[in-house]
């Protein structure tokens, strides 16, 4: 049964200066799926990610999220609609503790006005309690309990990655965009990450994964290969790996 696309990219084109970084990129991300995006450095993967998450407005093309055009929405609005990303270099809040980092991820689930917060009204206190409980549960779940009160600046690359994912997931995303999540991680940590991706997908979170890690990419149901801003091959990982063009442009064999 083909699922409805949660995200549809249509004829996306973008240029930096005179350089065409993306040329009529078109693909769908089906609801509940794991879609991968591979390609060598400079192939436009991160640019595409920045377009979907709202950091860049593309020069051409459209993006629809759950059937509604997305490109005019701010980063914040996309986040509230359930579209959350991580970054190639994990962006943790360095001076805050691990627990506080996770709490920030919950902040969008509640609403308080500045006045309520200034006066510490019962509503504001109640919401803060809810945020704490959610963050507590997320720390438990992502095995961050032992690191709970450490400043995020002191974490290793692997821990930062998990923290970033925990922080994104606690806000209940529908579509999670993971940008090179395995970079800087050791084999064990990559294995751990793989498990998380599968588990989160099993809970109904759709995942769009950018990586040049072929091993990690085997979790994806569909993989698109970007090469100089164009999709040169699509299919499951086995098909992709057999594709002569992919072998030529990407694997270099």
């Amino acid at each position, binding site marked *: 049964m083909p699922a409805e696309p949660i995200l549809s990219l249509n004829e996306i084109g973008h240029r930096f200066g005179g350089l065409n970084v993306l040329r009529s990129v078109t693909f769908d991300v089906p609801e509940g799926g794991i879609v991968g995006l591979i390609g060598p450095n400079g192939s436009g993967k991160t640019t595409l990610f920045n377009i979907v*998450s709202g950091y860049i407005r593309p020069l051409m093309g459209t993006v629809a999220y759950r059937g509604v055009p997305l490109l005019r929405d701010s*980063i914040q609005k996309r986040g509230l609609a359930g579209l*959350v990303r991580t*970054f190639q270099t994990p962006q943790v809040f360095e001076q*805050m503790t691990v627990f*506080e980092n996770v709490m920030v991820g919950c902040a969008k689930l509640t609403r308080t006005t500045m006045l309520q*917060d200034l006066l510490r009204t019962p509503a504001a206190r109640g919401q803060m309690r809810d*945020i704490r409980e959610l963050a507590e549960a997320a720390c438990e779940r992502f095995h961050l309990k032992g690191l709970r009160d450490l400043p995020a600046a002191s974490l290793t690359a692997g821990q930062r990655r998990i923290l970033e994912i925990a922080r994104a997931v606690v806000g209940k995303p529908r579509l999670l965009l993971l940008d090179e999540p395995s970079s800087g991680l050791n084999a064990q940590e990559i294995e751990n990450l793989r498990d998380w991706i599968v588990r989160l997908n099993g809970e109904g979170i759709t995942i769009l994964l950018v990586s040049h890690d072929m091993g990690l990419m085997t979790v994806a149901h569909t993989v698109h290969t970007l090469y100089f801003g164009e999709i040169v091959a699509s299919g499951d990982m086995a098909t992709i790996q057999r594709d002569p063009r992919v072998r030529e442009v990407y694997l270099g064999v």
Partner: protein
Amino acid sequence: MTSRLFWIAVALAVWAVLPFVVPRNIADLLVFTGIYSIAGLGIGLLLGHCGIVNLAQATFYGLGAYASAYCTVMMGLPSAVGFVAGAVISMALAYVIGRPILRLTGYFLALGTLALSAIASALFFEWDWLTGGTLGIGGIPKLDLFGFVLDRPSRYYFFVWIVAFACMAVARNLVNSRTGLMLRAMRDSSTAAASLSIDLQGLRTRVFVVCALFGSLAGSLFAHHASFVSTQSFTVDRSISFLLIPVIGGATSIPGIVAGAVFVTFLPEFLSKLGDIHQILFGLALVAVVVMLPDGLMGAVGRIRAWRAARRGGDAG
């Protein structure tokens, strides 16, 4: 915990006795310390929790002071009206100006706020029908709390400091709230904060409005204390000395704000006894604090504590 309570009790006792045991001019300075703490508190919120340098606080301080002066002297209204009018005008201005200039970051934002202060200072001077220009507005009545006139520094001291404590409580609430959490996230990484749906622009503007409210409140308190306001009190220089309060004391710490306010009110006064050289000495003291204690006086206290704890830990092990 008990030692903490003990020290709070000691501090409160000292606070309560202080205005009765010190000479009048010192009591007067203590009133100013309270007023400056309120103004500095707002800047501390922006600097310590949003990473924003606000060089425009004298604008809101001036608006509060002129609102109080104009309402009471020119219009004969109760003093409470002046406080409210100043607060409303300041917050509205902060909102309207804040939206566009808070899009800037870093040095550009600091320069934007500096420009605001310079413009406001020029307007206070030009609009003499409203502000009295360099002649100012005199005869501002002392505050009257249900028949109890706050006409001596020792009396006004308690009023100002109770207002200051209330402002500190409010600031502390904000820091510990959901808003405070989002502010710190934004300061550490605005990119990641945006991805978690934090409205950076809106949040910055709202804190700027709170900062303006504190500035205006301090200005109104100043007007009723000094009885006379004129343009000299609301220049760019004043904005700079307000910014120094959190820079010297430590922007994220409330005791730090008070320490910073003590520094900018007391030090010039004591140094002025040394004659013409006092401004140079104040400058040197300032440079010394900023260079040697980059996270302010309270940051230094924190480091001494950490060092002592480490040494104790070392002895035990």
